[in-house]
């Protein structure tokens, strides 16, 4: 039996991921026709490449259908409740950096921190009769962050895309979204709060706690040695 390694199936994330493994002597490549999602691994025996959408990798890891997976840490933390119980973080890979941040209109000259946002939320609710809306698709991460910091009187509204536009469109007062350069935020007249971001994301190699490791033991120890990784003590059964 082989070890299943899930990697993003397209784009820069896939290319960077292939580079990362290549630098460590493991060659990953797509095979077959240009649009066929099939792949091969050279350099370690009994490792099977599974090409998946980056956003599906957390779910596949949690279900144990793949042993290892590469995806953004933001997706794992957002999609998996109690993620440490389901996956082990093996290696941050140093690319795909992006911060999950909270941004408010630039004209809010009175707001720089969460402390201000909380105070404004209270006044906003009193003035407008509803809780200040924060548009995001990262519901779990943002809610946990605001709860840990004791922010009240807000509500999360779902936004699956073009989140920066929600403030201008009057469907939200603030946003929480992933940004790498901040350019889209500036173009939409928003600014980032000064507090540390909700989450600093990067592409990360994860291992699934609930995968069948008995069948992949040899391949895993070969791969770990090749990649120069250290497995946390007792991390996998």
């Amino acid at each position, binding site marked *: 039996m082989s070890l299943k390694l899930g990697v993003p199936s397209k784009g820069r994330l896939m290319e960077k991921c292939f580079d990362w493994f290549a630098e460590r002597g493991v060659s990953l490549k797509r095979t077959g026709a240009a649009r066929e999602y099939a792949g091969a691994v050279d350099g370690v025996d009994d490792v099977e490449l599974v090409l998946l959408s980056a956003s599906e990798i957390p779910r596949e890891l949690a279900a144990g259908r793949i042993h290892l997976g590469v995806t953004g840490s933001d997706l794992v933390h957002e999609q998996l409740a*109690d993620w440490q119980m389901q996956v082990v973080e093996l290696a941050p890979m140093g690319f795909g950096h992006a911060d999950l941040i909270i941004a408010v209109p630039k004209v809010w000259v009175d707001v720089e921190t969460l402390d201000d946002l909380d105070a404004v939320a209270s*006044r906003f609710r009193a003035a407008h009769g509803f809780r200040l809306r924060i548009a995001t698709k990262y519901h779990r991460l943002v809610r946990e962050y605001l709860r840990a910091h004791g922010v009240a009187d807000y509500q*999360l509204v779902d936004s699956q895309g073009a989140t920066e536009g929600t403030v201008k469109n009057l469907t939200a*007062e603030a946003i929480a979204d992933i940004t790498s350069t901040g350019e889209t935020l500036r173009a939409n007249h928003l600014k980032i709060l000064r507090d540390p971001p909700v989450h600093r994301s990067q592409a990360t190699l994860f291992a699934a706690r609930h995968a069948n490791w008995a069948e992949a033991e040899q391949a895993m120890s070969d791969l770990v040695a090749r990649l120069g990784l250290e497995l946390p003590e007792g991390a996998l059964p």
Partner: protein
Amino acid sequence: MTEAERLAAALLEQMQAAGAQPVAASILQPAETLLDLYGEDIRARAYVTHDPSQGEMMLRPDFTVPVVQAHMRIGAEPARYCYAGPVFRMQTRARAREYLQVGFELFARDDPARADAEVFALFTELLQEYDLRPVTGDIGILKAAVSGLETSPERKAALLRHIWRPRRFRALLERMGGHGPLAEARAELVQRLETSSAQAQIAEAGQMVGLRSAAEIAARVDLLRADAETPPIPQMQVAKLEEILALTCPATEALAQLRAQDWPALTPALDRLEARLEALAAAGIAPADLPFEASFGRTTMEYYDGFVFGFIAASADLPPVATGGRYDALTAVLGQGRAIPAVGGVIRPETLALLERKV
């Protein structure tokens, strides 16, 4: 019938014998009411589902809200209600997602001390066969202490809003005392805001976007400037407040220690505590042996604002067997102007079923 269901039925019967009228509540509750009361945090703790015509619904996380609403619709006063049934709480770990609650609620305008004592004495009696540690507290004393600080009404309101969020409360208190990272950030902000008028800065910041108007922004700029002129809350008072928050001792002694603070703002709240202790004594509960923890009830979402209590199993890592308290403010919010002083509590029969009875 499980042991827990049998216990629930027996408790309900005893509550009825104590004069309570049984009430039912729908399992599906409109999410909006609960979200407005408890905030977005409740989404992490309650199951939300969607109804095509009624919108977001929640599997009831407790009975308090529907029982208060039912009372507002139909109730004569004073009124005693009891109920039993499953509640649903989202969990990430291996804790129960669905469990039984048996509850008792008392709505009465007169003599709150006697109402508090009646509920606590009833729970003591219902649970007397088990080895439990009772604990009491009083959110009203914390509110009185905050209201008695020498500072602006805005600062007091900000602190009162966060009594149930200890971490933010502490950060605010530190800032208002003129210390810590929040105080520094605030000083920098105010310094920048001093350089020109609010209107000029808003115009300079670029395009106006969003619902929050320039007038609202300018109004808060004015508030920030005024707040910067407000002297820090005296260190002595912060220390006193911290001392009160940390108070843990038998109730009679707690009352004596709080009186010894010689803080006039506390007097009405302490008079209420004293009246409650007398009422408890009259109901057969000795206040000299009754544990009192001033911060008890601060981290639950239950919205209690006066007397609070719990019964905790001696063996660790079980949820409290029973919790309760006074929630006058919640009835005002739900009653949209109409309010009725209310006190009540719930018991978890599943937890009881895990405990051995005293012989």
